[in-house]
């Protein structure tokens, strides 16, 4: 298929009312779920996933992408109105958004957040369209050894989602890799950790694992400490951003969008660092620097642009290489897999129509986000009134039905419960769950490409350094490791210095008290 033929086929798929309906529904669900304090975009995408099985692949994937886009914007609504960020990345938005709300300009902050989100989202989608096809074309030259080295490099993304302790992040990933080995061995067809149970021969169901890991621990947390919402919802005030204000913020919005595109296309970095970097760059270069943190509208614009700029870019490694850029795209892989689609370079050859339909759908989603977001801003008060003690059981019921529906399997519901308990224990012990999920997805790819490579070379390990592509990935892996080790050591030193300082202060205080 030529580019134009693919584009026309993609357009044919999107230009149906069902596609637009499911995309709009996804954006609405995402904005709604992102706006509920206690829900996150990740949980919203995970809970929507089972509802996509009954749909055509394109409709299901558009629905999920809509939830993803809507969820990221939706997180900024509670961040501004009640200083409870719906997503970690929205914390940067709260820095200036909440002070604006306190001054009675919540509507203005939300309006600017919406403009910045839509523009950044659009820029990010364009970047995706330009770079994904090019990268996929390049990846067509990859064989098993190249994919093995690429996945080894991708596993370094775990450092980006490991949280406070890199060691714990890697342990979490190793346990994910181990659980991915459950089921029939792909080369010999023998059992691995199936304990004689036929349900385990196909491995652990991916959806059950991810919903168990990301939704159930929230229920456990609520059951442990049932709390009422304590933030006070601020009034909206005048909703609307003047043209002058928008013009003044445009530079920060585009800078934030580009930061988002750059950081989003690198697996593992995610939206939060992008939002904070965009915010700090805006503060550094703004003539109204002193007003940042006290209710500066440019701060809201920069943070939201950085936050939403990653949304399209994280799909670049997903669609072109089959590598999830962050936890949400790791979940979106599930939607491809349940429809027997494997994201990666071959998808551009075998299902170019779906790829181009997604591209067009993503562009449309920016417009839908603007329309639905405008309504959501005004309707937030009703969303904020959802009682938390009814939210947790509702999520539980959604999880039960959703996971069962994947394979008509009650066994999967049991797997989800077990993963939920495990997920809560790992959270309690300060192990990050995201490396576990990413490793669980990449595990089978890593092992299969490793073994296929050795089958090809009759056991000669030189195959892993057979050409410039493998060398490039090994070099990138080593560079990434060097960077990770350097930043971990620097971080540890910084923490030690902080601790020593606080200890010194403590000693001084106690001696002066004596």
């Amino acid at each position, binding site marked *: 298929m030529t580019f134009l033929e693919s584009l026309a086929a993609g357009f044919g798929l999107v230009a149906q009312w069902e596609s637009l309906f499911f995309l709009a529904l996804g954006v609405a669900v995402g904005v709604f779920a992102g706006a509920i304090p206690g829900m996150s975009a990740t949980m919203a995408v995970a809970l929507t996933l089972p509802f996509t099985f009954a749909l055509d692949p394109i409709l299901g994937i558009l629905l999920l992408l809509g939830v993803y886009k809507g969820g990221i914007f939706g997180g900024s609504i509670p961040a501004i109105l009640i200083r409870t960020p719906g997503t970690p990345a929205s914390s940067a938005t709260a820095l200036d958004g909440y002070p604006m709300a306190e001054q009675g300009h919540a509507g203005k902050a939300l309006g600017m957040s919406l403009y910045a989100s839509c523009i950044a989202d659009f820029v990010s989608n364009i970047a995706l369209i330009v770079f994904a096809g090019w990268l996929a074309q390049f990846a067509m030259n990859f064989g098993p050894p190249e994919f093995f080295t690429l996945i080894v490099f991708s596993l370094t993304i775990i450092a980006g989602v490991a949280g406070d302790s890199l060691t714990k992040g890697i*342990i979490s990933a190793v346990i994910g890799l181990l659980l991915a080995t459950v089921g029939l061995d792909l080369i*010999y067809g023998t059992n691995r950790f199936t*304990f004689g149970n036929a349900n385990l021969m196909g491995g652990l169901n991916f959806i059950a694992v991810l919903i168990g890991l990301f939704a159930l621990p929230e229920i*456990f947390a609520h*059951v442990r400490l049932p709390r009422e919402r304590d933030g006070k919802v601020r009034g909206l005030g005048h909703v609307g951003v003047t043209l002058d204000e928008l013009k003044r913020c445009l530079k920060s919005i585009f800078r934030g969008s580009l930061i988002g595109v750059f950081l989003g296309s690198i697996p593992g970095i995610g939206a939060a660092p992008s939002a904070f970097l965009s915010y700090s760059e805006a503060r550094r270069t703004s003539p109204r620097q002193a007003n940042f943190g006290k209710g500066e509208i440019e701060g809201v614009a920069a943070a939201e642009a950085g936050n939403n700029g990653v949304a399209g870019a994280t799909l670049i490694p997903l669609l072109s290489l089959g590598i999830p850029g962050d936890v949400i795209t790791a979940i979106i892989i599930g939607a491809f897999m349940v429809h027997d689609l494997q994201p990666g370079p071959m998808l551009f050859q075998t299902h170019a129509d779906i790829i181009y339909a997604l591209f067009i759908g993503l562009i449309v989603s920016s417009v839908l986000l603007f329309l639905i977001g405008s309504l959501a801003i005004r309707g937030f008060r009703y969303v904020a009134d959802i009682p938390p003690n*009814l939210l947790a*059981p509702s999520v539980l*019921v959604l999880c039960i039905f959703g996971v069962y529906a994947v394979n008509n399997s009650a066994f999967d519901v049991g797997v989800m*419960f077990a993963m939920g308990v495990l997920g809560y224990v790992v959270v309690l012990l300060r192990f990050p769950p995201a490396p576990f999920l990413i490793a669980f997805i990449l595990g089978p790819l890593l092992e299969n490409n490793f*073994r296929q490579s050795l089958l090809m070379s009759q056991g000669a390990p030189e195959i892993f350094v057979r050409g410039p592509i493998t060398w490039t990935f090994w070099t990138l892996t080593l560079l990434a490791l060097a960077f990770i080790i350097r930043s971990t050591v620097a971080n540890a030193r910084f923490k030690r210095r902080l601790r020593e300082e606080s200890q010194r202060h403590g000693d001084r205080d106690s001696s002066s008290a004596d």
Partner: protein
Amino acid sequence: MLSRRDETLIGLGVMALAIFILAYMIPNWIVVPRNVRLIFLSPMFWPNILGWVLLVLGGLLTLRALLGTAPPEGQADSLAISRAEGLRLVVMTAMLVVIFFAIPVLGMVWTSMLAFVATVLLTGGKRMGLGVLVAVVLPLALYFFFSKVAGVSIPQGVFVRLP
């Protein structure tokens, strides 16, 4: 950051898990065919590597906890769970086990309704009236979506069957 004691125990726990995997799980629960030509291709190879990596990381975590700087007194995160919190968590876990076994008997819809009400009661029982209403409506709505729209056969149980 957790206290030195907690981090040490976690490190030792990871090492114990690795030893359990290497010494018991892999030899007993991975079937290796006789005709494996290369050790790299054995179904045991990859899990063995991961088991050893886990052991090393557990050791690293333990060493770091023992030799590294501990958080100052009173500044470490606590793993302590109060009696009431622990009890609620145990009841919730037990409830998940009950739900799993109740689905084939009561059906998914009725089990979900009971699970919903039980969770509301477990977390204080506020807004019970609205809770009961949602407990009835939500599972029924999901039942109709999955069974009538998506064509999924939702377990009906042996007592009351839905259309």
